[in-house]
């Protein structure tokens, strides 16, 4: 399967909740640092007790999320793994393992921070999303 072009990457990134307030142009800038990665079946994407280094968007395939061997959830196409990892370097207590051959879009935290440093309006939009999310949590 051919590599994703920038428009396809942006369409994939539109499903990330954290990025939902960004304009297509801003998403395109994030897409430019997003790399397509492929994992064969039964490979670990996120390990427990390891600091997560990237956010992943599933392009095709599926990923099993488990804790201490217990399956919690199965993520499918356009779902996101480790979206808060971009801001929180604390290790996650879960394992993410492919159930089949899986293609993902990977945004590394380091590249993301470099991008934010140059694009303050993206930072502002993401902050706005975080604040809204926080407010919803408080109001619940």
């Amino acid at each position, binding site marked *: 399967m051919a590599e994703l*072009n*920038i*428009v396809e990457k942006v*369409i994939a990134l539109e499903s990330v909740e954290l990025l939902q307030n960004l304009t*297509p142009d801003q998403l395109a800038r994030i897409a*430019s640092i997003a790399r397509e990665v492929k994992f064969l079946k039964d490979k670990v994407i996120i390990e427990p007790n390891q600091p997560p280094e990237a956010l992943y968007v599933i392009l095709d395939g599926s990923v099993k999320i488990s804790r201490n061997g217990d399956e919690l959830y199965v993520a499918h196409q356009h779902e996101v793994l480790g979206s808060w990892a971009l801001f929180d370097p604390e290790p996650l207590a879960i394992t993410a393992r492919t159930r089949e051959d899986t293609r993902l879009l990977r945004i590394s935290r380091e590249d993301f921070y470099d991008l934010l440093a140059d694009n303050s309006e993206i930072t502002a939009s993401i902050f706005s999303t975080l604040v809204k999310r926080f407010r919803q949590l408080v109001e619940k």
Partner: protein
Amino acid sequence: MFDIREGEYLRLFFMALYLVTVLFAYYILKPVSRAMFLAKFDIDNLPGLYILIAGVGGFLAYLFTKAAIKTSLKAAVTASFAVAVTCLVAIWWLLGFGFPWMLYVFSVFVSIFSITLVSQGWLVAANVFTTREAKRLYGLLGVGAVAGAAFGGTFTSWTVYYIGSRNLLLASAAMTALAYLAFLGVVRQSGQALVRARGAAEEEGFEFKDILLSIGRYRHLQVIISIIALTYIVDVMIEYQFNAIAKEAFADVRRLTAFLASFYGIWLNLVTFVLQFFLTAFVVSHFGVGGTLQIMPLTIGLASLATFVTPNVASTGSARITESATRYSFNRTGMELLYLPLPTDLKNRTKAFVDIFFDRLSRGVGGVVLLVLTVYMNLEVRHLSLVVIGFTLVWIVLSIRAKNEYVSTVRRRLETRRLDLESLRINVRDRDTVRLLEQAIASGAPRQITYGLSLLAQAPGYPLEKALASLADHSSPEVRAAVFGLARERNFDGLLDRALAELRSSRPGADPAAIRPAVEYALAVSPEAPALAARLLDHPHHLVAQSALEALAQYPETLRQIITPDWIGEAAASPDAGRRTVAAAAIRVHGDKDTGALHKLLLDRDPGVAEAACRTAAALEYRTYIEGLLRRLEDADVRRCAIEALAQYGERIVGTLADVLLDDTMPLAVRRQIPRVLQRIQTQRSAEVLLASLDVQDLTVRTAVLKALNKLRDSHPQLNYGRDSVLRQFHKEARYYYELHAALASLRTNGNGTAARLLVRTLQARLEAALERLFRLLGLRYPPKEIYAAYLAVHRRRSEEFTAALEFLDTILERELKRVLLPLLDEDSRVVQVGRELFGVDSKDVPAALRDLMRSGDSWLAACSVATAAELRLRDLSAEISELSRGSGQEVGEVARAAIAVLS
């Protein structure tokens, strides 16, 4: 004694004349109105008058303030004078008929006279003098006001025997008219300042519910409000006693008028003046808030005791002088201190509540209390003294309570560092506050210590050195930093050994807060500063070396001997980034002609080194560094310093910056920052370069240009912002808007796929950005703040705001701009229609719209359009897509090649 400067004499003369004459007029009216009332009516009518003045007078004063806020100060003062003179003549005439009710009207009028013309005098002064001038000149104006009152009182006490009480109203009217002439002199001297000023100071708004809730919540506020209530109730009772005794003592209205005039105009004013100017500061610094607040009830209590023992003019007069003089001096200052620890907005709201409502309510309550005591309970004057003494006892208890509340509130706010530093600095001589601050620095908490030290340093004559010595070894670097900083300010050399020990023990990686202050202090007090600086320059901790380098700027000869080209070369090549930073800073001593080191350091991988190099380049201003500085504009970590450094070169590099800004081959990340540099250069030439770049192709650069122009106009409105180029660009942007809108209209109804939806979102975002640019352009032609407010209203689309914004734009925009802009804010169908009429932009079918977008030169729009064409299987567009796959950038090319694969 008074520092009056050139250009201030005439303004000061007319302003002082205004106050002298207004106070003169007022101190005629005050004794006359009261004497005529007392001569005509029984003393039992006085409580009713107090209630009337509190109610009707308060209401009329409130109406006056509300009306005055809406008009200019000049108009308000003119109207006030016209009404005052007319009323005085009318009252004089009507009093001639002997209507008893006219005396009530007269008394209410006098209370309003004080609120309007006297208060307005100080408002005029506040607008005539700047804050700095006011600090120097208000003392003199205060003397003028006291003199006016004394002259008025003296004049009244003499002339009443010749012309009678009633005719003095005409003298007051004449003085009021003279005061207006003085005001016209003030207007002439102060130009536009008074025309722009409002007719009354806008009071802080307050809601009764909020204030009541706050009073319920803050014990501190409960005490304040209780003291204020007692102050006004006691004021009314003391005045009643004084008037009652005066009425008995002076049966003849002329003698009574003369007595009251001398009493109020001369004695009361003089005593208040002496207490305020010579004793208040002393009392506050020696007795603190609590003591200051207790003086008033204590002295009133003693004076009332005298009244009880021997009720005569001397005792009641003493009580009246005591009450009034201590209220305007000690009590006012004490209350100001009491308000101090409250949060600023609560303090302002409470003050507004007291000024607008509560003082009148309290006086009205005082009238009611008097009515009950005198009319219904038939208490005599001397027995009223016992009631007053009772009130003063409660008052003293409240003052003690107030002091405790003050101390605990200050302590709480000190702990959270939320005390209003500026206000406290003025009053830090207060003994209680000083004691609290001493407790704070003994607390051991670094934040409190540094805060307490900074405040104590402001206390006049406070021996801070002992505290500094005891804290120089504190475990917190923050505290040590404050100690060395304050010791340097005070030139206290007793901590030199400690500072050197601080530097000896400093290691890279440890908290550096105390290093710079320690270096600065050591070099400031050391008898061998140059030699010490030379040693510190080779210190392994770069911050020590850097601080020493900065301090050595005072010794240029020594600096030149130490900082040799070899020294710089060695330091610049060091693997230690801190050492390279020092090298970058040191280059400014000789320049780097011999080493060329700064070019390398400007491109250093370490941001700290690069920043120091930028600062040195800015100090040296060699053109040869410009290229290096421009390259650092791409780096977010160093960008700010690079921008500042380039701006430092000033106008002579504006041409170079223009070349970079307009050069399509330069990196966008660099071009985007050039407007920020130009905005800081702030000359007509930089404005012209920005205006000439308004139509650059890249939208991010164009927006940066507009933002820079908006900021430049905000800070330098006097520059010329080229009407024609702004209008030309406005039409281009509007046309772009209409074209995008037409494309969006066709795509919105014909594309449901993911790529089409992305294209629609992109177009919507582009339209929003274009609208912002249109408003930014308007901000270069019309008042920027108002245009920004209109933009926000249009952007938010809240019904009322939006309508108001449309009306505003419809009113101020010239016809040509209005014709283009207002339809953009209308319904979609109208936008399409106007686009056709004004710019010939027709609706298009989807392939035609996509074709135009692919050719627009906007790479992201082109990429989305290509993806949409592929999604919609529009093979008619294959030629355009093939062209893009070959000739455009990498990302659009990839999208185009993927589209060709789908379409083939």
